[in-house]
């Protein structure tokens, strides 16, 4: 019970901070919207691998996965700020198991990612792809495990990182490759073999695919493969994250 309260309180803290910084909520959506409305429309003549949909509509599920990826991983890495500002010390000194701390932090990241996803779904429903309420709900439901998995990855890396300088490195060497190899912008079925091979190890691949199945009715893998892979990545992220949090010590 006390662990539940602690996780709830940590989530509440993240929620308050998230909703207090409205500019950030909007700022996070800028690059996905550029992809959708500039690249998606700019390549308007480009072909869509799914018949009956434009290229812009084809990449929309991928861009939803992109928002989940970037919001969740950035949030996870932000734990370095907490370390820097010494706020984390207060939490590290609290009488709660590190797994509770990890869960509370992860729930906070998921909340942010889900709000951004909902906003994007809303924008998309009006301007890009007519989406029924059931589809939107399914997409949000799929976003829950996806955001858990990616927030877990971000928190694990954040817990290990020493300074904010590593932030750019993680974005260049992890986040962007995860996005590009996931097939968010193209069809994996016709992609070069090395792309397909790498994409198998990219958790975002399965997120993109699941979103596509929900919103376009057609994906590269069957839904159960996507769900299974996401479940495995969730377990791995949770195990690594709890271990990394367990080793977090006060640094000075």
């Amino acid at each position, binding site marked *: 019970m006390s662990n539940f*309260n602690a996780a709830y309180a940590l989530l509440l803290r993240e929620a*308050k901070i998230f909703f207090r910084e409205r500019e950030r909520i909007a700022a996070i959506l800028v690059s996905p919207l550029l992809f959708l409305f500039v690249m998606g429309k700019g390549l308007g003549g480009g072909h869509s691998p799914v018949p009956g949909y434009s290229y812009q509509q084809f990449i929309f599920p991928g861009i939803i996965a992109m928002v989940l990826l970037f919001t969740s991983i950035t949030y996870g890495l932000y734990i370095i700020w907490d370390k820097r500002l010494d706020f984390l*010390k207060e939490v590290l000194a609290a009488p709660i198991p590190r797994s509770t701390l990890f869960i509370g932090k992860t729930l906070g990241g998921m909340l942010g990612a889900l709000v951004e996803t909902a906003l994007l779904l809303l924008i998309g429903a009006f301007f890009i792809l007519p989406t029924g309420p059931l589809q939107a709900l399914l997409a949000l439901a799929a976003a829950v495990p996806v955001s858990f998995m990616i927030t877990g990855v971000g928190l694990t890396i954040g817990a290990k990182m020493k300074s904010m300088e590593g932030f750019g490195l993680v974005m260049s060497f992890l986040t962007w490759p995860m996005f590009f190899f996931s097939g968010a912008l193209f069809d994996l079925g016709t992609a070069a073999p090395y792309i397909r091979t790498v994409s198998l190890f990219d958790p975002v691949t399965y997120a993109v695919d699941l979103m596509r199945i929900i919103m376009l009715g057609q994906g590269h893998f069957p839904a159960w493969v996507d769900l299974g892979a996401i479940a495995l990545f969730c377990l791995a992220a949770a195990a690594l994250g709890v271990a990394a949090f367990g080793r977090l010590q006060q640094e000075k």
Partner: protein
Amino acid sequence: MSAIITHDLVKRYEEVTAVDGVSLEIKEGEVFGLLGPNGAGKTTTISMLSTLVRPTSGTALVAGHDINREPLEVRRSIGIVFQEPSVDDLLTARENLYLHSMLYGMPRREIPGKIDRMLALVNLSDRGDSLVKTYSGGMRRRLEIARGLIHSPKILFLDEPTLGLDPASRKAVWEHIRALKEAHNTTIILTTHYMEEADSLADRIGIINRGKIIELDTPDALKKKVGQDLVFLRGSIDEAAVRALPFVKAVERANAHYEISIIDSGANLQALLNAAGRIEEVEVRRVTLDDVFLKFAGREISDDAEEHAEGIFQRIATQKAVRK
């Protein structure tokens, strides 16, 4: 019963031994001052006792719980005010206290009332709903003390509680600490490098230098060990009579006045004045903890003052640089 017992606590960081075999016993309800220069091992000691850092060897019982084997139980019994500010800037004072109360497993019904009482205790009632980033340094410190206390810990650790505060805020924090000691039977462990702070607050003081406790006693007893108060006298002084007194250690003549070193001016001042002759002016400077500190830790500190000035991490960096 003892609030804290430590057995040969050691913490080594690569090549630097930050804490080198500290064995202490702190009584329940006691205010214990840990006094030492920067880098002496004060914060590391507190970090080990509050289970934030694992000792390299040795152990301690805090509120009856072993720091290595029962860290969560230890954490539940203690409150900490860290050296660096650690309140959450992006939340209000009330939200900070709420988060803390929930993390420490307080019953939810009791939390709002407790928050009101703690805010009143540290005179922040009217600013409870402001974001902490609008607070001054002194207000943050008071909020942190309120936070350290809200879950009614048996033991409170205060790591340099007045570092960087202006004199008025410092006095206010001292008042709060004294009030605490009187109102509850909270055991308080306080680190500081301000002598007057340790002197005015602590029941007992441990002087720590290079990771070792080099002296441990009440402030008065420590001063007695150094022994000498200075009495300045002006007038026609009978120097021979003064020298003959058993408690007089030294007499020096400087311009128009005499500087007389005596043991325990409290007990012996009257006898000195009776023997001294016709006196026009008297000034007494009691021995201070500064004198104590310089006597016990002084030479070692001045030997490597540079090394100590920046604290333990600088020492590690320096040693690494030397190695390369």
